[in-house]
């Protein structure tokens, strides 16, 4: 496989193995992920891409039988170190899930919740500012500003997903993980979220898992192809989609029987 070392990677994974009980889900993955870049993880169902994504903010800690070995560094620091508080880590590494999952609270409270528990605002005015800024960044402000006290669950699916993105960025993260963020959205809402992802790239390192090859091609600059728990190929997105080097990548992206 091509050498994937880069200068000053935001995330650096070395020899990562993940087991669910006796079952090995990730096999010796080495990858470096750049800052201010959208990196797409693609691969067939069960290839380990979501599992690997969930290692990046220790979401797998919540699964009892899950065991992670190897090293994952963010800005050079091992996130699996005993000193690291997973809750703090997840404020720094935000996550957006497949199905929009707003809290059963008002739009305002959905966004304000993270900053409140992490003590990011000293008073109401500062909190208001964070909420507005986050909703603006998530391209939801204009649609939501007159109904901030209404329940987040009353928004449309696409709006709910953008609300979840606003919620994730309200804690001022540096990395955003997205696990199939558009699979429950219609094409218009998908296009809006993709446009948003491209804007978020200015401020964050974005890692997105997607089943839509076209989405990976549209939004990402780097693409990693996973297969049976291994990272098969990792390269510039345009390279992966015009001239992949591994026949397994070729088969998968062009819809062949591999």
């Amino acid at each position, binding site marked *: 496989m091509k050498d994937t070392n880069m200068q000053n990677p935001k995330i650096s994974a070395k020899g990562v193995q993940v087991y669910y009980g006796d079952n090995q889900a990730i096999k010796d993955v080495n990858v470096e992920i750049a800052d201010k870049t959208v990196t797409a993880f693609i691969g067939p169902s069960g290839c380990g891409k979501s599992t690997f994504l969930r290692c990046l903010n220790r979401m797998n800690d919540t699964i009892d039988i899950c065991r992670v070995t190897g090293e994952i560094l963010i800005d050079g620091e091992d996130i699996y170190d005993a000193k690291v508080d997973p809750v703090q880590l997840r404020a720094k590494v935000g996550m957006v899930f497949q199905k929009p999952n707003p809290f059963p609270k008002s739009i305002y409270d959905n966004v304000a919740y993270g900053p409140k528990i992490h003590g990011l605002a000293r008073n109401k005015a500062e909190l208001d500012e964070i909420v507005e800024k986050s909703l603006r960044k998530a391209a939801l402000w204009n649609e939501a500003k007159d109904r901030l006290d209404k329940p987040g669950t009353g928004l449309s699916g696409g709006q709910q997903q953008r609300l979840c993105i606003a919620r994730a960025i309200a804690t001022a993260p540096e990395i955003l993980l997205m696990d199939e963020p558009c699979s429950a959205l219609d094409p218009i809402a998908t296009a809006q979220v993709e446009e948003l992802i491209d804007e978020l790239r200015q401020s964050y390192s974005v890692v997105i898992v997607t089943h839509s*090859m*076209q989405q990976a*091609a549209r939004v990402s600059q780097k693409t990693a192809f996973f297969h049976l728990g291994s990272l098969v190929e990792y390269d510039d997105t345009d390279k992966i*989609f*015009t*001239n*992949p080097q591994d026949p397994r990548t*070729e*088969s998968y*992206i*062009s*819809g*062949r*029987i*591999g």
Partner: protein
Amino acid sequence: MNTHISSAYDRDLDAIQTLVIKMAGLVEEAIMSAAKSLEMRDTDLADRVRAGDKVIDALELQINEEAARVIALRAPVSKDLRAILTVLRIAASLERIGDYAKNMAKRTGTLVDMPVIAGSDAALRRMAREVQAMLKDILDAYLRGDVALAEDVRQRDHEIDQMYNALFREFLTFMMEDPRNITTCMHLHFMAKNVERMGDLVTNMAEQVIYLVTGEMPEEARPKGDKTAYVTDAT
């Protein structure tokens, strides 16, 4: 290459390739017929070449439409994408070659009533036969994904260029000897230039085949053989 999960996708790609092969066959025939019609002073054959170009043009249109349909419906990537891009460029090159053959046939109609320039008809036919052989080989290279053969064809364009250089000087000599040869020689020179351009287009096709297989355009420069831009007299 494995088959697609969607078998209709494979059928679409095969159908386009069949059109390209059909078009190439017609173009090969047009090249040889154009040269033959000159040598035999056969205006009927020349007329048939001119009429046949419409079929070639129509095939290119059909290939473009089919390719656009596949791009719109299948969003091809990787090798499939390169296959579609290659088909489009090969069809465009074939169409141009067909135009050059048609132009040769047109001039045949004019040349039948003019004095013969000794040896030039046969020389043009040899040149045309060589281009036709290159075209045939590049089609084989395309179908088999044979990079070595494509590279060979690419290098052979040099020979066409040399044949053209020789003819250029010959026509110049004839024109200097007797100004009454000028009209004939001008037409013959355009025909030689047409064949030389066909060689260039076949070379483009060869480069496209290399891109199709390897994903990269050949970088290495090939020898440029047309030196006539620097000729000042017939010596």
